[in-house]
């Protein structure tokens, strides 16, 4: 049996190690205790010694590769021992660990009760008695320090409300009101349109600014990774779409109406010709903008733009628009990327933070229904794409599960098309360096 060479645990908190370099080549001989390979940890490089004397075979990990602790990286054969197939095929079988059986007490969920009259000062017992007595705290005058409502104040109020025999307050005298629900109600919230302009933020820099238009259910925050990859002095203008990010909630009749709303803000912020970049729905809008304001757009960059074919993953759009918690949002966000771990939990949390307002989610669901009824893109921009004349770049991920990359084939020959491997619907998040490099080259001409 050859001696297995494993990735050793060399640090208390180490789960895997990066193989830095082999000191012995495949087939060479090595002495037990001699330096065999180096591991790179975040603290230091560590030399690993050969566990046996013999010839090194079946090197399984190349320099730079990360290997889990305990997994084999090569085998050492004793002198004269026949070298067979790599024995690595038989993995270390983990023994299933069963904790000793012990009765686990059921976890009792704490009852959550919404705050009642949060501005009032009242002692816990006063609050409880008011609740049990069906009294509004706001109707009671507090006689305690700084107007705090105390037990005696509630008792007096109850006595006033219920003339006759003295009521014993230890027990509820009125049906307890139903607790305020903390889960978002199933019934739709009727949201109201808000006044004000669309939210625009800028990053100062030199030269012609790049205007950024985000996709459906995203916001300007989503450009962060790309912004960091772009030259630091690239001036940026970011627009939040209606009912997105920090823009007001607005009703939208259809794609044309949305494009019109965008032209208004574009005219306001674009002082001269600009570079224009849009993603997904924002890509479709950028294309429409370029069609409407051709002289104001120096170059056009489209990342997985909408409007070039009927297919779209309507379930994902609705799922994202509807999700009321990180747990319900995260699975939908995973569809955005090629790899399921492309979206981190922190990102999902940040995304959810921006979507906490149920009215915003409601407005977005309505927008999705208008733009993508029955899961279909209800607007066609292929004609616009053939009309425009400015230099145009299109980037699409080959593993886009939301908008199939084949829709890019609608583009005329002048459009520079880049199809990225192992990238999904959000190339600017999944591979910001490549996208930044392509756009950088494109806008510099």
């Amino acid at each position: 049996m050859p001696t297995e060479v494993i990735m050793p645990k060399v640090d208390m908190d180490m789960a895997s190690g990066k193989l830095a370099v082999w000191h012995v080549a495949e087939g060479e001989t090595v002495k037990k205790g001699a330096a065999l390979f180096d591991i790179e940890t975040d603290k230091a490089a560590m030399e690993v010694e050969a566990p046996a004397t013999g010839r090194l075979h079946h090197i399984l990990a190349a320099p730079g590769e990360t290997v889990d602790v305990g997994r084999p990286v090569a085998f050492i054969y004793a002198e004269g021992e026949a070298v067979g197939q790599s024995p690595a095929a038989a993995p270390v079988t983990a023994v299933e660990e069963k904790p000793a059986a012990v009765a686990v007490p059921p976890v009792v969920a704490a009852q959550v009760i919404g705050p009642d009259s949060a501005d009032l000062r009242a002692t816990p017992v006063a609050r409880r008695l008011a609740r049990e007595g069906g009294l509004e705290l706001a109707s009671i005058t507090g006689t305690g320090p700084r107007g705090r409502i105390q037990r005696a104040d509630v008792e007096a109020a109850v006595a006033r409300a219920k003339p006759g025999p003295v009521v014993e307050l230890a027990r509820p005298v009125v049906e307890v009101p139903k607790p305020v629900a903390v889960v978002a109600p199933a019934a739709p919230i009727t949201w109201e349109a808000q006044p004000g302009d669309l939210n625009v933020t800028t990053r100062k820099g030199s030269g012609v600014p790049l205007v950024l238009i985000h996709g459906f259910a995203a916001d300007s925050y989503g450009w962060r990774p790309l912004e960091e990859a772009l030259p630091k002095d690239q001036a940026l203008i970011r627009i939040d779409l209606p009912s997105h990010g920090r823009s007001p909630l607005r009703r939208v009749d259809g794609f044309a109406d949305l494009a019109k709303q965008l032209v208004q803000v574009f005219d306001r912020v674009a002082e001269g010709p600009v570079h224009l970049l849009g993603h997904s729905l924002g890509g479709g809008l950028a294309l429409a903008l370029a069609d409407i304001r051709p002289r104001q757009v120096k170059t056009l960059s489209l990342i997985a733009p909408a409007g070039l074919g009927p297919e779209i993953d309507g379930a994902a759009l609705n799922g994202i628009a509807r999700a009321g918690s990180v747990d319900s949002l995260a699975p939908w966000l995973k569809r955005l990327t090629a790899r399921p771990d492309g979206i981190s939990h922190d990102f999902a949390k940040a995304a959810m933070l921006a979507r906490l307002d149920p009215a915003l989610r409601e407005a977005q669901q309505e927008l999705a229904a208008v733009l993508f009824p029955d899961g279909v893109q209800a607007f066609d921009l292929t004609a616009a794409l053939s009309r425009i004349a400015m230099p145009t770049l299109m980037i699409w991920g080959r593993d886009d599960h939301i908008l199939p990359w084949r829709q890019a084939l609608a583009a005329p020959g002048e459009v520079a098309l880049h199809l990225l491997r192992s990238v999904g619907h959000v190339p600017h998040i999944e591979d910001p360096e490549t996208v930044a490099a392509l756009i950088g080259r494109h806008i510099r001409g």
Partner: protein
Amino acid sequence: MMRDTTENIPFAISQFSPAQLREALRKMHLIRLFEEGAEESYMRGLIHGTMHLSIGQEASAVATCMELTDADKITSTHRGHGHCIAKGADVGRMFAEFFGKETGYCHGRGGSMHIADVKTGNLGANGIVGGGLPIAVGAALTAKRLGRDDVTVCFFGDGANNEGAFHEALNMAAIWKLPVIFVCENNKYGMSTAAAYATAVPNIADRAVAYSMPGVTVDGNDFSAVAEALHEAIARARAGEGPSLVENLTYRWRGHSKSDRNRYRTKDEIEEWMTRDPIARFRAELIAHGVLGEAEADAVEVEAKDAVAAGIEFARQSPTPAVTEVTKFVHAEVAA
């Protein structure tokens, strides 16, 4: 080659029976193989936390415990696997403890650094340098107070000899003439700090003078030399004449713990000490004096190897403690 004249027969060969000597060799192998097995399990990620290996110090552990019975106590150190095995612990339950299992000696609550086996008189390894010194004196006080003739061996390292607890403990053991033997395993370094730098006297055994007890320094890799020193100290303790200090000069082949980069000592020094392997030396001695043949000596090692393999398997198959029992063993269980 040694000649088998009476004068040249090592103490241990003449003092102990062939069966006892064979068992001593087996335990030394068992310690070495146990620690190598633990090290490998650690590298495979099966063991949580760090450990302090005593590979290279096996003669000190086994020879020191040679004349101890289960009634005799030891207190151990953070480098205590050898002491535990030498005192008679089962390697299966030790591995189970290292793997954090319910079947381990401490039911997964202690791990390598608190490994103990109270039933064989091991009061436990200790994560605090010098922590076991006063405790050993207390155990010896119990024996004396209750009129028992058992003794306590207190293992400690060179680092502990500069702790206040060392001086307080030796002084009290001496004034009360308690049956305790302080065994310093001087492996030259307290973590990275050389004993020669950190200690004001050339030999730690020199400290004994300050507490009016015998102090002797021996080659800790020489099984017989250690056994002889302990023989005298134990006899003195059992006779009610009080404590002794024995210093075993030895060396740990491995680093202080698993995160040691060995920056404070040279490869040459480590390799030089590895040529003084206490196990190879003892084995050769037993063969030279006709206690064992080559084949029998090999068989002893195989026996130890099998015990380690079986121990690891036992540990792997054992159940983990229930997380709901995190506070179990904080206090005595009260009958409701």
